[in-house]
């Protein structure tokens, strides 16, 4: 006879990185299950070391667990070896803190960071023994909620979720739990509970709406529940200084992808690059004051033991008086060997100066995202930097001693032509030559090229992704080009993964059948190239008689109802249409203005 504990121990001895599944990290919160009103588990549909790097997880963990009446535990997707063990030994997916099966919780909340996690969500529900479709769940099953950036078009996964929380979660989630606790206490059934939650701002209950089609084309949603809101508006935290700033998140034993403390400087971005979903769905811009940031940094270092703090935002140098902030932080930690890092630096001389201030002597490589290699295309996408400005920023970086750059570009942007693609190679060659002259030595240059994915709630939401064949052709062009330049590391995103991302980013509810089929065929952890199998996905689409091209490569007209049109994520479609017009005007006028 072996008990569950012995069984799990035996499983752990046979898998890679067993610490992914054992919890008990520093700052992990252990609560008595019999002593709370409501038990929630936050499920992250990716591996432990990815999920533990996520800021949202830390924020929600603190927002819920600081209240004695509720508890939140964590669970991450098991890697393939652990999944096999769980299925062989019939051990259901369990939460890290208590080791209890997910089915024993009241609420399971999935963090939906991007589209390629959907098959993993289904797999985790199945491993937990929770029916994957909400219509099959009974009163004894947990409620399943989704949150995170992908919920700004959650339609492809709508049938797997009882509801979604759209927008900022740190205030909305505790409110949801409070309501839920009340409804549970009243002894209501699943349907009544869901109904009772419906007046919570930011809550989207897919079963209250029915999707409609005309000749196989999406024609809109109708309300089937009297009083259900239309549109559903996202939640917005008004004051970041008063919001949760998690200073004591669980500190993982094994190395997380981002293994450091993190403080959010501000949410939202005022730049409005037209391809960037984050730039629109996190609006308006809300800042944390310098005082709050410095206090949070002190607390984080004291409570976690991290020696590095990331000052996170979508565009760090847009933080007002950022130099003052860095001065104050340096003063606060004088002689303490605490490092700071500024992700998402803009490619201008000011940012280079900032990086210099922050890194003080540690010279590795600087990461920048020019996104496009021609002034024209950068203007179209709203990244208003000229090649001249970029080069002088790089010059400045070289002068103060940076030894390498990582440059991010995109292909397939609206209005892109062959010449724009070829310019990426020319641009990087110029950077290399220029540096050689300036510094007299070889530059460590890596270039990464991804493919544009049109995303909901951006000015480019109507635009098609270029065809899969065209992505591959443009990638080939780049490979050929970079082959001729020695000393540049060139990498590109898998074309098929970007294609799939585009399918689901603008998908509708019909795609649920494909997701379920793909999962049955064995798809999961699709963000990992060793797991991603486009062959299986193709088979799933075929068996469901759905053409993925009809989604990824669709050119929506401005009159077409959009599958995510019933969700209001902070920016009106009128504004997005104007921005789209501006982009196309910029493209049209470019030749005229620059002759």
């Amino acid at each position, binding site marked *: 006879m072996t008990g569950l504990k012995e069984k799990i121990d035996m499983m752990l001895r046979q898998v890679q*990185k067993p*610490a992914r599944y054992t919890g008990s990290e520093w700052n992990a919160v252990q609560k008595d299950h019999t002593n709370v009103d409501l038990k929630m588990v936050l499920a992250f549909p990716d591996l432990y070391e990815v999920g533990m790097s996520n800021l949202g997880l830390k924020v929600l963990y603190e927002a819920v667990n600081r209240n004695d009446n509720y508890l939140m535990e964590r669970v991450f997707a098991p890697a393939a070896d652990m999944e096999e063990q769980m299925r062989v030994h019939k051990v259901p997916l369990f939460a890290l803190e208590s080791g209890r099966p997910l089915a024993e919780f009241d609420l399971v909340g999935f963090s939906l960071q991007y589209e390629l996690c959907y098959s993993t969500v289904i797999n985790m529900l199945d491993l937990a023994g929770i029916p994957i479709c909400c219509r099959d769940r009974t009163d004894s099953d947990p409620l399943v909620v989704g949150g995170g950036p992908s919920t700004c078009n959650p339609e492809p996964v709508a049938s797997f979720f009882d509801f979604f929380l759209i927008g900022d979660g740190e205030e909305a989630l505790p409110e949801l739990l409070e309501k839920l606790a009340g409804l549970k206490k009243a002894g209501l059934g699943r349907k009544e509970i869901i109904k009772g939650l419906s007046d919570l701002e930011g809550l989207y209950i897919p079963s209250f709406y029915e999707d409609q089609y005309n000749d196989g084309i999406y024609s809109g949603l109708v309300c089937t529940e009297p009083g259900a809101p239309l549109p559903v508006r996202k939640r917005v935290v008004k004051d970041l200084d008063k919001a949760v700033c998690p200073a004591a998140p669980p500190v993982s034993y094994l190395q997380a992808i981002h293994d450091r403390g993190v403080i959010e400087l501000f949410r939202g971005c005022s730049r409005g690059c037209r391809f960037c979903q984050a730039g629109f769905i996190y609006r308006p811009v809300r800042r944390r004051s310098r005082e709050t940031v410095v206090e949070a940094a002190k607390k984080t270092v004291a409570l976690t033991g991290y*020696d590095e703090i990331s000052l996170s935002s979508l565009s760090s140098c847009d933080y007002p008086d950022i130099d003052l902030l860095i001065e104050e932080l340096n003063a606060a930690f004088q002689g303490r060997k605490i490092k700071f890092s500024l992700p998402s630096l803009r490619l201008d001389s000011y940012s280079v100066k900032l990086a210099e201030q922050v890194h003080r002597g540690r010279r590795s490589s600087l990461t920048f995202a020019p996104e496009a290699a021609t002034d024209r295309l950068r203007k179209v996408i709203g990244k208003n930097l000229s090649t001249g400005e970029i080069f002088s920023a790089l010059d400045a970086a070289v002068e103060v001693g940076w030894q390498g750059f990582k440059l991010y570009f995109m292909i397939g942007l609206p209005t892109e032509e062959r010449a724009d693609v070829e310019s990426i190679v020319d641009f990087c060659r110029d950077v290399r030559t220029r540096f050689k002259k300036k510094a007299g030595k070889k530059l460590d240059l890596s270039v990464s090229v991804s493919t544009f994915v049109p995303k909901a709630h951006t000015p480019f939401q109507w635009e098609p992704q270029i065809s899969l064949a065209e992505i591959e052709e443009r990638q080939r062009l780049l490979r050929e080009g970079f082959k001729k330049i020695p000393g540049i590391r060139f990498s590109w995103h898998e074309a098929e993964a970007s294609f799939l991302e585009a399918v689901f980013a603008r998908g509708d509810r019909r795609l649920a059948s494909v997701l379920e089929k793909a999962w049955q065929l064995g798809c999961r952890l699709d963000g990992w190239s060793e797991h991603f199998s486009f062959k299986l996905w193709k088979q799933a689409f075929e068996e469901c008689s759905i053409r993925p091209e009809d989604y990824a490569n669709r050119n929506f007209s401005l009159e077409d109802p959009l599958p995510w049109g019933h969700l209001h994520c902070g920016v009106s479609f009128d504004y997005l249409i104007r921005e789209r017009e501006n982009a196309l005007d910029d493209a049209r006028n470019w030749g005229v203005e620059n002759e």
Partner: protein
Amino acid sequence: MSRLLFEFHRLETIRYISHLDMLRLFQRAFYRSGLPLEFSQGYNPHLKFNLAAPLPLGATAAGEYGEIELGAEVEPELFLDKLAPQLPGGLTLAGAAVLEDNSPALPSLVEAASYEAEPAGFSDLLSAQRAGAAIGGLMAADEVAIQKKTKKGKTVTVNIRPHIFETEALYSSIGLLKVKMLLKAGSAGGVAPAVVLGKLNDFTGGLMPAENWSLHRSGLYCLLDGQMNPLTEGMCFIQWIKK
């Protein structure tokens, strides 16, 4: 400036973390502790801190040691008081001492480690007999060959028999209680307990797979005048303070 030696035990809750994880865990505990830390020079300064020998993933342990250099004189009592509350559940401090200047670096002293492997899932009389026979076979062999991958990826055959100092099976009335091993360890090479258990499994014809053992490291040893001694015997300090 002072250099401190400390003893710790690793319990079940955090047995599944790697050596690098252990180093990180201690580093963060030191950062939180408020002790006066001493750093190396250079662009990436790190703590002057060592653990005696890497613990196998999955093993609990008693009698593990670490050493750290601090930037000021710190009494062992204060050291223990500051560090203990910063260690996660599953890691306990047993004691500490201030090291003399001439005390050798901790990892360089390690010569051997003792392990206790408890069967998880096959503790019956039949397996007890098999374990006994397997140990007999192993210890009687002049050569125990294993395949090992070198850093360059080549596979070479290594004889681990000289690295197995002692192996012994202990029994209870119902079956096998545990297998005790004393194995060579330390920077000059050694053998991992899982490798030895794997060999024992071979001797039983595959009836005792390595994942069915629960592993515990009971002690670390150094060599003094040709004799195995507890590791602390090789270190120079005046007074050992128990937690």
